[in-house]
């Protein structure tokens, strides 16, 4: 019988049970990231399941701040794109969030308001 307490605190929100993101899929993505990546320890996908959760939470919060500034109740792709553009450490995503249909022609967002 699984003992609650030790492991349940490991998953966010004190919820016991599996991780929020599938470990096998994470491992697959890691291996595809480069030819160099041949072996991945058992812990690495576990670390990423937490890191990705934090990443998604942070980007979602920043995007929502933009949506609220635009007086919207629905989070849209453009809000995520604006949040990416306003955050230095998310520079690696700039190309991903802009496409030929929507070149970086987004309503400017004050950078100061998004810096935590």
């Amino acid at each position: 019988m699984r003992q609650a307490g030790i492991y349940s605190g490991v998953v966010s929100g004190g919820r016991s049970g599996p991780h929020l993101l599938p470990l096998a899929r994470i491992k697959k993505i890691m291996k595809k990231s480069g030819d160099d990546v041949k072996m991945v320890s058992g812990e690495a996908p576990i670390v990423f399941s937490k890191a990705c959760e934090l990443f998604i939470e942070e980007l979602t919060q920043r995007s929502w701040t933009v949506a609220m500034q635009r007086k919207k109740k629905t989070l849209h792709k453009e809000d995520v794109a604006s949040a990416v553009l306003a955050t230095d450490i998310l520079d690696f995503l700039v190309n991903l969030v802009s496409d030929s249909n929507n070149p970086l022609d987004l309503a400017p967002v004050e950078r100061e308001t998004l810096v935590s």
Partner: protein
Amino acid sequence: MDDDQQESMLPIANVGRIMKQILPQTAKISKEAKQTMQECSTEFISFVTAEASDKCHKENRKTVNGDDICWALSTLGFDNYAEAIVRYLYKYREAERHKANQNKANSSQDKP
């Protein structure tokens, strides 16, 4: 988006669930926003892994481990994650140790 593409990214249902958790109850999320988040978080894994893998390569190590990921996160500017993860990793290792001890204890017992 075809199946192959979906298979090479984090599942959109899981991503959507995490997004929903952090937003107010009344907030709505467009499908495109979820897709974008799915792509961004997948790219996040690739980006951080590449950095970690580079370090391993330079140090002549074959296996990318949890500590390498933590190091890469810090190097790339995600230091606030690194701290939370060091704690998470510690708890995970404790849990694994506990599980291993439980299994040992269970297997040495005579069950009716």
